[in-house]
């Protein structure tokens, strides 16, 4: 027997059946029936954000920290358009989120009604898939299908646009088990023949390297375990993209650190000099490859990816393996063990000796200054004072993000929330809220720059309202640091609009929001100030005044290969040619 209920009730019922207990949202005219249903139940907790963009980033943070899809509920028109940045961010970083938007009644669609926007049209290119529900009978089935699409294959954002009359009307509820999840069933098992080739390559490689990415996180904690087992058993060095940090522990003996534009010297040179590159769930992003025709010239390349379109998109690979990282790594381990656990130990030992030489360069070294706090030092101290704690780090976008990736160590997956692909300033504050909602007792820190932080600072209201003790650790250089750095290196030190002339007093701002503000400008006070932040049981805005003209190194200049890294101030003169200057 099918259950009859209103569309609005169906939304709540379907979310419950999908195991959803948390929704981030903002009400408005076109979603009032759903909000009315939310009011009359207890199973789903709704978190009222201050801006719809914040709702989507919070859902992203929640999803990234739990492995479960994040859910967002917003109204039509501006509610939906404000969600677009978050949707695009989630699409680029493959984060599973389900966004429910209200829509004007079906009979008014196309009439330029109040708060009408062509939501499915606008979000078509920034969602994995989207639906406009025209009939209440189909609503619950679509919601179940949406969760399936968001979470299977390469995860991503989906959107369901629900007109107000569909919410009011009654229809038949489709149970989760009976919902058609369409033909969309991405392949998870890799091709055994290619997997065997990869194992053969692992057995003979002299200079192998693992290059891992966000796909390992998305595949679940099991994939990280398998990766660790494989890396430790083979003794092969491993590096990771920004999105994959934590899959292999930073304290692990084979860890090289992050690679890419601001990656570690040893990691990038290992990529450049390897003879076997094993890409596990990464996508040869341009921040990673640098100049394509000089990218890792002497290596054979294997690429494990669940998305066929990632393979051979920018880099031609020799061993493409389409499948889920966890499934493929399991098979790789199985085959490798069955064939006698062979590796070219002697050669790999020599390879490590070379890597140790590169490591001696100590590319992250800096001189702590006595007078002003250097941002690297601030992060070093944050790392030291939070080590061993159940810690989740979010970031905004810019220099501080790269420094956080360089100077903080991640021991486990799902502990690092950052906007990688889209580079969305304003991501971190709402993301930290989503993470704290998912893990109420954990230490959640948003490492931010003051410029990024201002972009979604309204969400401190959300943090205070729900008593979410998120720590906003702002490295304040009164500049758009990364923009300033590029202007210095590329645009003749003409600092066009890259500083903020009228910054707020962050301590007073914290007080205005009803949380705690801490100002620190003296390196001598830094430890005490950080401890004060960590010990405070509530949200904190930490204004850390840092060196204003610090540049982020190492750096691969645009248009250059991995072995042309800049290590510090002395090497930056005319480092970027006119060709590189056109690239971002």
């Amino acid at each position, binding site marked *: 027997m099918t259950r009859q209920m209103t569309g609005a009730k169906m939304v709540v019922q379907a979310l419950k059946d999908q195991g959803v207990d948390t929704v981030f949202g903002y009400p408005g005219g076109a979603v009032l029936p759903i909000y009315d249903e939310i009011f009359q139940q207890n199973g789903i907790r709704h978190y009222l954000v201050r801006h719809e963009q914040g709702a989507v980033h919070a859902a992203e943070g929640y999803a990234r920290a739990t492995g479960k899809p994040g859910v967002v509920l917003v109204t039509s028109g501006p509610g939906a358009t404000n969600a677009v940045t978050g949707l695009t961010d989630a699409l680029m970083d493959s984060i599973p989120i389900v966004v429910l938007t209200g829509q004007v009644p079906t009979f008014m669609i196309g009439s330029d009604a109040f708060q009408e926007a062509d939501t499915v049209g606008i979000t*078509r*290119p920034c969602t994995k898939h989207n639906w*406009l529900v025209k009939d209440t009978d189909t609503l619950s089935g679509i919601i179940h299908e949406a969760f399936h699409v968001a979470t299977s294959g390469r995860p991503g954002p989906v959107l369901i646009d629900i007109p107000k009359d569909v919410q009011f009307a009654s229809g038949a509820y489709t149970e989760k088990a009976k919902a058609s999840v*369409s033909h969309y069933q991405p392949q998870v098992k890799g091709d055994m023949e290619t997997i065997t080739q990869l194992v053969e390559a692992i057995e003979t490689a002299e200079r192998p390297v693992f290059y891992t990415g966000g796909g390992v996180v998305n595949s679940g904690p099991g994939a990280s375990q398998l990766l660790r087992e494989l890396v430790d058993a083979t003794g092969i060095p491993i590096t990771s993209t920004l999105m994959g940090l934590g899959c292999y522990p930073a304290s692990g003996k084979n860890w090289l650190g992050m690679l890419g534009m601001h990656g570690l010297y040893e990691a990038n040179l290992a990529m450049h000099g390897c003879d076997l590159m094993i890409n596990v769930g990464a996508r040869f992003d341009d921040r990673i490859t640098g100049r394509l025709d000089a990218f890792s*010239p002497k290596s054979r390349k294997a690429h494990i990816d669940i998305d066929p379109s990632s393979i*051979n998109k920018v880099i031609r690979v020799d061993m493409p393996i389409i499948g889920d990282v966890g499934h493929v790594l399991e098979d790789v381990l199985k085959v490798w063990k069955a064939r006698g656990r062979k590796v070219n130990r002697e050669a790999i030992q020599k390879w490590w000796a070379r890597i140790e030489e590169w490591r001696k360069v100590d590319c992250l070294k800096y001189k702590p200054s006595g007078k002003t706090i250097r941002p690297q030092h601030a992060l070093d101290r944050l790392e030291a004072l939070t080590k061993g704690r159940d810690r989740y780090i979010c970031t905004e976008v810019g220099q501080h993000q790269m420094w956080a990736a360089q100077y903080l160590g991640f021991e486990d997956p799902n502990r690092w929330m950052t906007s990688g692909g889209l580079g969305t300033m304003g991501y971190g504050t709402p993301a930290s809220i989503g993470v704290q909602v998912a893990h109420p007792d954990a230490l959640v820190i948003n490492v931010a720059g003051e410029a990024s932080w201002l972009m979604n600072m309204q969400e401190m209201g959300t943090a205070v309202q729900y008593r979410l003790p998120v720590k906003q650790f702002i490295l304040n250089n009164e500049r758009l640091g990364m923009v300033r750095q590029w202007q210095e290196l590329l645009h003749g030190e003409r600092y066009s609009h890259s500083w903020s002339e009228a910054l707020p007093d962050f301590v007073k701002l914290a007080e205005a929001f009803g949380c705690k503000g801490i100002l620190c400008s003296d390196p001598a006070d830094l430890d005490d100030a950080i401890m004060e932040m960590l010990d405070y049981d509530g949200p904190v805005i930490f204004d850390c005044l840092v060196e204003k003209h610090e540049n982020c190194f190492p750096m691969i200049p645009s248009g250059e290969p991995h072995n042309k890294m800049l290590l510090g101030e002395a090497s930056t003169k005319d480092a970027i040619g006119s060709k590189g200057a056109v690239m971002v």
Partner: protein
Amino acid sequence: MSPLNIKKGSTKHSAYNLRPTFSDVQETHTLAVLVDNEPGVLARVIGLFSGRGYNIESLTVAEVDHLGHTSRITIVTTGTPQVIEQIKAQLGRIVPVHEVHDLTVEGGSVERELALIKVEGAGDKRVEALRLADIFRAQVVDSTLESFVFQITGTPEKVDAFVDLMRPLGLVEVARTGVAALSRGL
């Protein structure tokens, strides 16, 4: 069909030769895409092409299975082999897309297009137009004392050739359906 036409274990394509080995020869391929017949599916396909900068030479779409709610989109596109592979992989990623067939590499196909061609003229030109239409097996589907509308079916090349011949004879307007294609054999 494998989602990608990558030779297994091929080692000659190393990234070192990325630019050179990613051939810059432009190829024309005919793709048949089977999709759920639902609102917006054509917009998704077209949006993919415009958003990622791929070419569309011709595109036709119509429902082919009413009960199964499936439509067939036939796309003729031009690009380097690498771009063609990307197009197929990207199409395969769209949720309502069931199958993507590259008819150009899957053992060849028959391709046909229908065109309506309006020609105006009198006297010798009118006679000549009718004579050529006969040679091309084009039919007259509308006639006035000063004009004809011809209907022609055939490969796009044949239609092109006929249109070119009609130009000096008083060509007024052309309407073409775009290519419909099926693979040869079973």
